[in-house]
């Protein structure tokens, strides 16, 4: 040990050798002091510094000096801030106040583990639900694309000729637009394009259907998306159609399907049956142009026809619009200027290409304002808002719970707090200390909530919609989510801590000290607690009613007759164009061979083929010219009617009755184009007429002849009114791209296995867009109500649990506080049963009140739900009568268990208890 660090004042070195106070700290100190003290206080501090120096050595003395300076500055800030905010002279002049408060709060929490556990648990449930839901909303709607300078990026849309402004664009239009932007002086400096397609990717000879994206060569460069390996595309590779078979792999595909092979660049992979050379792997953060849907492989736009097959040249058809465009704003240009510039550019296109572009305007929206797509955002935003409101209610209930517990604790601490107030503790300091305690609780709850959210998200993601496209919602807990959770925790801490803290420190000290706890027992304090519990019950009631309505609606939806046979069936959709069947003729032959093989199987009874099934995810319409019917609003005068292409045998296998005329037969395949229309079609356009034999116009001089009328089926949703529908007979060009619906013996799963076996016997290399059972197909339709019912049931149950804990707490606290009263009652002859009844009754009055208020709230809250409910009124009697019964039963149990304890009170002991 160095001699000068030795303890004790006996050092006695001459002053001149003493090291001076730290220079920077001393200078800072002088600057921090008011002018009149600059000469004096530093000298006085020096004096103490020298004393320390002698006692503890230079290292510790210098450290001490620095700390004093820091403290002085912080204290001056603190007191001047307080001078502004408070008029009372509460001078907590201890710098360690916050740390002390924290330590004190921690000790108190550790000392009552039961309370802490329940508090942290309820908060964790509330905060966890909020974090989970917010993560979802964040992932889908809020997270920005990981691109450079998103504020200078705009989404470019071509409008439909029916007036909808935000649709996709065609490749020739894109090339013109890019040339105009790059070569001109307009607000856009560049326009990049992409097109998403389903492609087939072979991995070790194992084919799979993947999401592919065809992008302009400068796509990644303009967005600033880096490559994890290799390079992105060059201008050469996107200059001439079909000449550069190169791909960039998604990071996830590289890792999952190619084992993260470090030598992947330069390797050949087979995409849609052709060899492509891998030139790069895109950065891990990039999931593709469309959020949620994961792109697995990228190729230059010029390879579009090699990716898609199907015989249509997507690159040269100006009327074939399926590209997403993004524009880069020049420095200083605004999205509004881009929008105006695009509008005039589109007018130019209309003049040059009236055939394809009449009525197709162009528009731009700032990319920062578009999450998925303007149309989808419009649908999702209110749903997201509703879900956040629901979990917000759960958190509110958890906070009410905690506030109620803390009120009880505050009552128990009244003597202590009154004492401290009387001893001169400032009310502000006490409130702060209590708030520190609740905030600490809330932060603990928040931490536990994050863990719980992780678990809840797994639960929510289990509701994966049954669609054939790989989906990724990156619900990771990123900074935004954690900041959100932290903020929610602190707000919750203050929210549930403030009222109890203010009450507990109510400076009405004298009665408490004089009368003891008895004074605290009556009056408003207890009412506030009971009000909180009643509020909890009201809020849980609202949530439970919501859950009940969706559960009932789901039951009803299952009972709606969709107009076709929903019994067991297998649905398989082969993608023969991705499986090496190059011409339409080959594909049509394959489809007929598969159908033949299926029908030859003794366990298979019927096979339907169609490019669209009722109640599927896709909406498909055709434009029809209807003779003798007034033209539609569209410039062309054609009518948009839902349609499908079907093969002969469709109506029989789907169980849809043909009520007039006839269905299709195999002989029809070679002749003129035929159609069967739905009864709603007749009722809408040709009421009372026999439409068989009529021709309807299909544009381009073609027409189809109606041969029959089929019974109505539900087309898009279960709740819809009968919808006009046209079944067109598939021709050679379309026959090869239809989905098979296979009926027969056994369950859907058995049928599916059987079907795949048969198809495998014909071509084992065939890839499928989807293979599923009829039940799975219908599940998609019920996905939104099922998800709503599931989530609301979980959250409603959670709320009920929290409310039950609240009731339990109030009653058991009442039992503890009223021990003396119970003792008196028992000693005066009240039976245990009467005492329990008294306590339960007081608890149940709260429940009655809460349910009453909840009923009113629920009636108001369910108004926006009516659009989402099937077959029940929003004031469904079963729900509105059943939920109070459930809630009442749970509440009764929650009150009865603690009340029972009162019956065991020993009157003598109880009377002595104070």
């Amino acid at each position: 040990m160095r001699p000068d660090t030795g303890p004790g004042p006996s050092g006695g070195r001459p002053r001149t050798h003493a090291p001076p106070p730290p220079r920077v700290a001393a200078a800072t100190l002088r600057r921090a002091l008011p002018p009149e003290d600059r000469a004096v206080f530093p000298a006085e501090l020096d004096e103490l510094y020298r004393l320390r120096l002698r006692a503890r050595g230079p290292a510790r003395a210098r450290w001490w000096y620095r700390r004093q300076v820091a403290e002085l500055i912080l204290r001056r800030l603190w007191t001047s801030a307080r001078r502004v905010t408070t008029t009372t002279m509460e001078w907590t002049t201890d710098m360690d106040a916050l740390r002390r408060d924290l330590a004190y709060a921690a000790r108190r929490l550790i000392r009552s583990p039961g309370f802490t556990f329940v508090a942290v648990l309820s908060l964790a449930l509330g905060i966890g639900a909020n974090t989970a839901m917010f993560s979802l909303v964040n992932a889908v709607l809020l997270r920005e694309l990981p691109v450079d300078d998103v504020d200078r990026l705009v989404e470019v849309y071509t409008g439909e000729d029916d007036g909808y402004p935000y649709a996709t664009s065609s490749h020739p239009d894109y090339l013109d637009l890019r040339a105009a932007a790059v070569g001109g002086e307009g607000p856009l400096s560049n326009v990049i394009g992409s097109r998403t397609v389903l492609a087939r990717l072979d991995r070790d000879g194992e084919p799979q259907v993947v999401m592919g994206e065809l992008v302009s060569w400068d796509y990644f460069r303009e967005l600033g998306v880096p490559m994890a390996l290799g390079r992105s595309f060059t201008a050469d590779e996107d200059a001439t159609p079909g000449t550069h078979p190169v791909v960039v792999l998604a990071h996830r595909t590289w890792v999952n399907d190619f084992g993260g092979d470090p030598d992947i660049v330069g390797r050949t992979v087979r995409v849609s049956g052709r060899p492509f050379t891998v030139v790069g792997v895109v950065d891990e953060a990039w999931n593709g142009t469309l959020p949620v849907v994961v792109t697995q492989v990228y190729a230059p736009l010029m390879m579009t026809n090699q990716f898609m097959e199907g015989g249509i040249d997507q690159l040269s058809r100006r009327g074939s619009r399926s590209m997403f465009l993004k524009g880069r704003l020049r420095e200083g240009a605004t999205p509004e200027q881009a929008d105006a510039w695009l509008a005039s550019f589109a007018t130019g296109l209309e003049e040059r290409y009236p055939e394809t572009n009449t009525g197709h305007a162009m528009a731009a929206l700032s990319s920062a304002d578009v999450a998925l797509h303007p149309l989808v955002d419009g649908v999702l935003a209110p749903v997201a808002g509703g879900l956040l409101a629901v979990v917000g209610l759960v958190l509110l209930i958890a906070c009410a719970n905690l506030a109620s517990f803390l009120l009880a604790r505050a009552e128990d601490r009244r003597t202590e707090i009154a004492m401290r107030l009387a001893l001169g503790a400032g009310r502000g300091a006490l409130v702060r200390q209590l708030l520190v305690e609740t905030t600490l609780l809330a932060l603990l709850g928040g931490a536990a909530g994050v863990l719980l959210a992780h678990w809840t998200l797994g639960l929510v993601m289990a509701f994966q919609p049954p669609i054939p496209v790989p989906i990724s919602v990156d619900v990771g807990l990123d900074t935004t989510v954690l900041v959100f959770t932290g903020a929610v925790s602190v707000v919750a801490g203050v929210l549930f801590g403030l009222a109890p803290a203010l009450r507990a420190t109510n400076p009405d000290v004298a009665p408490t000290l004089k009368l003891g706890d008895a004074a605290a027992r009556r009056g408003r304090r207890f009412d506030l607690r009971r009000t909180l519990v009643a509020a909890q019950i009201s809020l849980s009631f609202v949530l439970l009613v919501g859950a009940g309505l969706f559960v009932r609606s789901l039951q009803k939806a299952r009972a709606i007759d969709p107009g076709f046979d929903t019994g067991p069936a297998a649905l398989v959709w082969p993608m023969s164009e991705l499986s090496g069947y190059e011409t339409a003729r080959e594909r049509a032959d394959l489809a007929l061979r598969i159908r033949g093989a299926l029908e030859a199987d003794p366990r298979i009874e019927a096979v339907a083929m169609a490019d669209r099934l009722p109640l599927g995810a896709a909406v498909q319409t055709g434009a029809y010219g209807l003779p003798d019917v007034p033209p539609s609003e569209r410039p062309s005068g054609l009518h948009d009617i839902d349609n499908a292409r079907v093969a002969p045998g469709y109506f029989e296998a789907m169980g849809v009755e043909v009520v007039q005329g006839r269905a299709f037969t195999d002989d029809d395949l070679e002749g003129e184009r035929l159609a069967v229309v739905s009864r709603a079609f007749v009722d809408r356009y040709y009421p009372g007429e026999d439409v068989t034999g009529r021709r309807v116009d299909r544009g381009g001089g073609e027409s189809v002849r109606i041969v029959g009328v089929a019974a109505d089926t539900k087309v898009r949703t279960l709740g819809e009114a009968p919808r006009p529908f046209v079944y067109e007979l598939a021709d050679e060009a379309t026959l090869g791209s239809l989905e098979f619906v296979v009926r027969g013996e056994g369950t859907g799963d058995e049928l599916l296995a059987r079907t795949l076996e048969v198809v495998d016997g014909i071509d084992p290399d065939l890839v499928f867009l989807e293979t599923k059972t009829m039940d799975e197909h219908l599940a998609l339709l019920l996905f939104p109500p099922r998800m709503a019912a599931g989530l609301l049931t979980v959250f409603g149950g959670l709320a009920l649990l929290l409310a039950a804990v609240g009731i339990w707490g109030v009653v058991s606290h009442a039992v503890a506080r009223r021990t003396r009263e119970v003792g008196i009652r028992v000693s005066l002859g009240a039976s245990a049963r009467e005492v329990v009844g008294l306590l339960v009754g007081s608890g149940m009055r709260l429940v009655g009140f809460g349910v009453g208020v909840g009923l009113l709230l629920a009636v108001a809250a369910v108004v926006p739900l009516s659009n989402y409910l099937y077959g029940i009124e929003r004031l469904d009697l079963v729900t509105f009568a059943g939920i109070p019964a459930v809630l009442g039963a749970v509440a009764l149990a929650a009150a009865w268990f603690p009340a029972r304890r009162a019956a065991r009170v020993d009157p003598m002991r109880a009377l002595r208890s104070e």
Partner: protein
Amino acid sequence: MPKDVLGEFEHQVLLAALRLKDGAYSTSLVLELERVTGRDVAPAAVYIALRRLEEGGFAASELRAPPEGGRERRYFRVTPAGLDLMRESRRRYVALWDGVETILEPGSS
């Protein structure tokens, strides 16, 4: 609630100032408080407390050289208002202590 309630630390500073009579300035107050309470006392805390007390009119200060000579120091004394405040605090303490010793058993806070 009375506006002028004395915080615990201010109370201690005023008491120490009274004990030190004419010799109360920040260094001597720090040393006196440390000696009596047996704890480390931050000069910054004392400095701030003194300034606040002075602002509230409970203490007054003057700059003068110490009797033994040397640099000027800021000496503090307790004003009549400060004395009133201390009397009031003392009265409350005594009233409160009356009959509540049992609550303050060792181990409870």
